[in-house]
C-alpha cells in the first residue's frame, strides 16, 4: 500500500489533507483499515462539535473490535461524511478517498504529525 504524499499522518493512524481556507479533511489510513478488518459501524463527531488533538471523537466497529477515533488536530467539525455512516465498508475500500470521515476548521495542530514517508517508516516497524 502507498500513503499519498500530499497528506499528513498521526501516530494514531489518521490522515489529514492539505489545509484549504483553514479546513482539512480527516480519515483513517489504509494501514489502519487493513488492521481493523471489515468496518461495520462508524460513529463520527457532529458538525459544530469541537474536537481536540489526541482525544477520542468517535468510534469504529469492525468484526473483531471497536476502536476509538482520535482527532489528529484541534478545531470545529464543519462536515461529517454521511456516505461512510451509511456504508462503513467505504473505510476499507477507499480509505483515502470516499472513506474520508470528517472535516475540521483547524485552530491548533500538534507538532508531531508525520509526512507520508515518515508514516510509512512508522508503520513498517
Amino acid at each position: 500500500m502507498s500513503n499519498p504524499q500530499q497528506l499528513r499522518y498521526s501516530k494514531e493512524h489518521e490522515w489529514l489533507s492539505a489545509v484549504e481556507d483553514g479546513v482539512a479533511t480527516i480519515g483513517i489510513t489504509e494501514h489502519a483499515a487493513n488492521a481493523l478488518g471489515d468496518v461495520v459501524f462508524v460513529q463520527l463527531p457532529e458538525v459544530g462539535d469541537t474536537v481536540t488533538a489526541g482525544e477520542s471523537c468517535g468510534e469504529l466497529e469492525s468484526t473483531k473490535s471497536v476502536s476509538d477515533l482520535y482527532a489528529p488536530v484541534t478545531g470545529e467539525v464543519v462536515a461529517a461524511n454521511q456516505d461512510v455512516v451509511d456504508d462503513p465498508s467505504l473505510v476499507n475500500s477507499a480509505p483515502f478517498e470516499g472513506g474520508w470521515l470528517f472535516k475540521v476548521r483547524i485552530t491548533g495542530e500538534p507538532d508531531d504529525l508525520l509526512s507520508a514517508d515518515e508514516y510509512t517508516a512508522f508503520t513498517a516497524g
Partner: protein
Amino acid sequence: MPVMFSASGPGSHVHMSTTPRLTALDALHRSLGATMTDFAGWDMPLRYGSERDEHNAVRTRAGLFDLSHMGEITVTGPQAVDLLDFALVGNMSTIGNGRARYTMICREDGGILDDLIVYRLGETEYMVVANASNAQVVLDALTERAAGFDAEVRDDRDAYALLAVQGPESPGILKKLTDADLDGLKYYAGLPGTVAGVPALIARTGYTGEDGFELFLKPEHAEGVWRALTEAGADAGLIPCGLSCRDTLRLEAGMPLYGHELTTALTPFDAGLSRVVKFEKPGDFVGRKALEAAAERAETAPPRKLVGLVAAGRRVPRAGMAVVANGEVVGEVTSGAPSPTLGEPIAMAYVDAAHATPGTEGVGVDIRGTHEPYAVVALPFYKRQK
C-alpha cells in the same frame, strides 16, 4: 487508534513468550497475503481478504480452512474405551466404529476443562481432538487418568495437519478428489480414505453451521491437498478462510467457544449442555459426584442461561460487557460480533433466568456506558436448510 491492536477474539489471546508455532501451510498462507494472528501459541491466518466475504462464501458456497492448531490425542489399547468413559463425561462405549461424538472433559469439581470431538478410528483406537488452547491440559489429564487402564495416550499434535472444507458446495468439491463414499458419510462420522492421492481421515464435522468436512492429513501432504482443493473448488467459488470468519460462523450457529461460553468456572449444566453428561453410563467418571449435584441445582435453582441477543442498533456487544435490565446487571456477554448473515450485531450471553426467556422486554447491554437495547432470542441465530 491505539486500541485497535488489542481487539477481542482470536487476535487477543495472551501471547506466549515462546516463538509461535507454524503450521505446515505457513508459507502458503503468507503467499496468499493472509493477515496472521497469534492464537493459542500458533501463528494462524485471521483472514485473507474481507472476513465478511469469507463468512458469506462458507454460507453460500465453500471455504477452505487450515485448522492445524487443533490438538490431536490418540488413545489406543484394550481398555481405551474404558479410559475414555472414566476420563470424559459422555458415553464413549456407544460410539460406533467410524463415528464421532461431541463431548467434554471436566475436573473433579465439574468445571469444564475442554470440549472435544472423539473419533472412533478402530476397534480399540480413538482420536480425541482438543482445542489448541487446551491441548496440553487435555493431554495431561488423559495421561493422568489413564493410570490403571490398559491403554496408551499418545500426543499426536505434530502427526496431523487439519484442513476443513465447509459450505454447501463442499461435498461436490471433495468428490472430485476422492473415491470415498461421501454420500454414505453421515454428520459426525469419519472414515479413512484417499484425498488427492494421499491418505486422509475424512470426517463430516465442522464448526460453521454448514455441511462440510475436516481432513486429518500428514503435515507433509497438507500443501498438496490445499492446492488440489483450491483448484477443485475454483468453479464453485471456494475461497481460503481465516479464523475471524470461523468465529462469526460458529457464533451464528450458536456453538460455544472454549474461553468464552465454556470455562473451568462452569459445568456443562451451567452452559446449557447437560445433554453431553451421561450419568447412566456404567462405572465412575471424573466429576460424576459434582455434576450430579450441579444437575440437581439446575433443577431447583436455575443458573444463568446462555441466550442469544440481537441488537436493535448497530453497536456491537463484546465479550465481558454487562447485560442490564432496569439498571441492574443481569448477565454478561460471552461472544459478540456483527452478524454477516443477519446484518445485525449478535451476541451470546449468560443471563439470569428471570430475563432469559426469548422475547423478554427491557434487556440491554452496557456498551461503554450506554445501555443499548437488545432482543433476547433462542439459539442458534442461524440454522441451515437441509
